[in-house]
């Protein structure tokens, strides 16, 4: 069965003859540490190490989990977007979701934020579940994406003031000033968001995401439109936030170098399923590659080849 890039309908991978044959959908060992006994060698990814089954338990986070997903599945009218995904994100971790376009990263984050209702499976965030704990969860997390905007006709200050009120931020003026300084955009406070450069806009979106000092920060391509200097500073800010506030960051990015340098652990998703999970260095070792980009290319191109 062939998966054509960009096709609207994707075959259900669980029914793929290739997957059944264990050729196309060979899943690497998700539990990079503590495997019980040597499983068979992965035939399709030379040097990638032992083969695992996707239903194997996720690797344990280094700290108590604040995000837990169990058998998370989302089906959209016949298309399986996320297929039995399980993972834990520990407190204070920077956790990356990686995978080719259409792998299910955005759907996964959307389910974690209650924007999409899972078909089945369980999500537990900060010990709470949706819908009962929605308000408590969402007041302690935040989200930023390059693909989501803020009202363009409002000034930066007005936008941040509105969201500070939505999140019940105490001493909002001080908090907004602090964030504007941190992102080096104090001069934009009185400007309309629509008049800013894309890099400035992205920093305003990130400032909005940090207003409530979130325990968990979900970021979808946070540095996609930033120049290398500002992108590097942004990564530095994310590390600082983790260090100062103990915040957890769940991030998606197609910038492989960024994921490699920033993330404590990475979950590589392929066709909605867990392909591999672990610290970047261990993933590189497992695939026998020098960079995450090479790993990505290997997986993405194999996925697009006929089985």
């Amino acid at each position, binding site marked *: 069965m062939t998966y054509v890039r960009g096709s609207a309908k994707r075959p259900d991978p669980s029914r793929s003859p290739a997957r059944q044959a264990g050729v196309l959908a060979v899943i690497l060992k998700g539990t990079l540490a503590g495997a019980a006994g040597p499983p068979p060698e992965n035939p399709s990814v030379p040097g990638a190490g032992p083969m695992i089954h996707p239903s194997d338990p996720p690797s344990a986070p280094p700290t108590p989990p604040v995000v837990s997903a169990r058998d998370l599945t989302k089906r*959209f*009218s016949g298309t399986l977007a996320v297929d039995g995904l399980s993972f834990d994100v520990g407190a204070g971790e920077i956790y990356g979701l990686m995978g080719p376009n259409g792998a299910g990263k955005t759907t996964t984050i*959307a389910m974690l934020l*209650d924007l*999409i*209702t899972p078909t089945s499976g369980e999500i537990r965030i900060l010990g709470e579940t949706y819908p009962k704990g929605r308000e408590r969860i969402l007041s302690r997390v935040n*989200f930023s*994406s390059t693909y*989501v905007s803020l009202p363009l006709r409002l000034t930066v200050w007005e936008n941040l003031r509105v969201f500070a009120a939505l999140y*019940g931020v105490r001493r909002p003026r001080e908090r907004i000033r602090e964030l504007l300084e941190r992102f080096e955009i104090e001069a934009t406070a009185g400007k309309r968001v629509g008049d800013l450069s894309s890099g400035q806009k992205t920093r305003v979106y990130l400032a909005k995401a940090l207003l409530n000092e979130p325990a968990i920060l979900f970021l979808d391509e946070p540095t996609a439109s930033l120049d290398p200097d500002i992108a590097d500073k942004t990564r530095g800010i994310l590390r600082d936030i983790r260090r100062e506030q103990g915040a957890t960051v769940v991030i998606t990015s197609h910038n492989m170098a960024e994921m490699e340098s920033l993330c404590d652990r990475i979950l590589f998703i392929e066709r909605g399923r867990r392909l591999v999970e672990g610290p970047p260095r261990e993933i590189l070792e497992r695939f026998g590659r020098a960079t995450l980009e090479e790993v990505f290319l290997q997986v993405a191109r194999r996925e697009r080849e006929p089985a």
Partner: protein
Amino acid sequence: MNVARMGALTLRYFYLYRSSLPRLLEQLYWPVVDLLVWGFVTIYLRQFEGTLPNFLAFFLGGLILWDILFRSQVGVSVAYLEEVWSRNLLNLFVSPLRPVEFIGASMTIAIMRVGFTATVTLVIAWAFYGFNAFVMGAWLGLFMGSLILMGWAMGIFISSLIMRFGQGAESLAWGLIFLVQPVAAVFYPVEVLPTALQHVSQFIPAAHVFEGMRQVLDGAGPPTGHLVWAYGLNAVYLAASLTFFYATLREAKREGRLLRVGE
């Protein structure tokens, strides 16, 4: 001038209209609504052959109160659309803001819009035409209140439709209310309508308000019955529109539509 390029662009619009039912219906919508409203107004005027008492008061009162209903509905629907246009909806849905709070804020902004417009139109009607709407006394406030409630109910219903069908349905925010206008008896009494439409108008809160307005302006006694009907129907429609909004939101979350807002 390159005819082929013009043809290509014409084809582009043809494809657009062919695939968009709201755009297609809009071609028929306004001519039909205009014909119905002004046709019934003509029938009403012909019955009295120019000797209609209180016509100016009926007409201006109808115009002012209709605008209150319109602004109230548009205020709620456009509040939702503003978030769609600015791609801000996801930021709101991932915040602790509850859907009912979002609706409450939309209603508040709708009241502010109504207050602003009503003040201007009441002053203009008095200054230019010598029509003082306050001759209706306290009834005016009750009429306005009922129309605001009906506008909210319709606004919530329309926002739900936009959530369900996407930005292509945004013209409903300005157009759907006019579907109600012919049976709301804004400029003529319900009795002018054909019998079948008279039955329909019994279920339109605005029809009771406009009948009540004419009753007050005619000095024909308090419009208590009409107002009880209007407020009762508004309660039912508000509950129904809120239920519909929540059901649409649940479905949007199931189908992943919130991520595709703007399409």
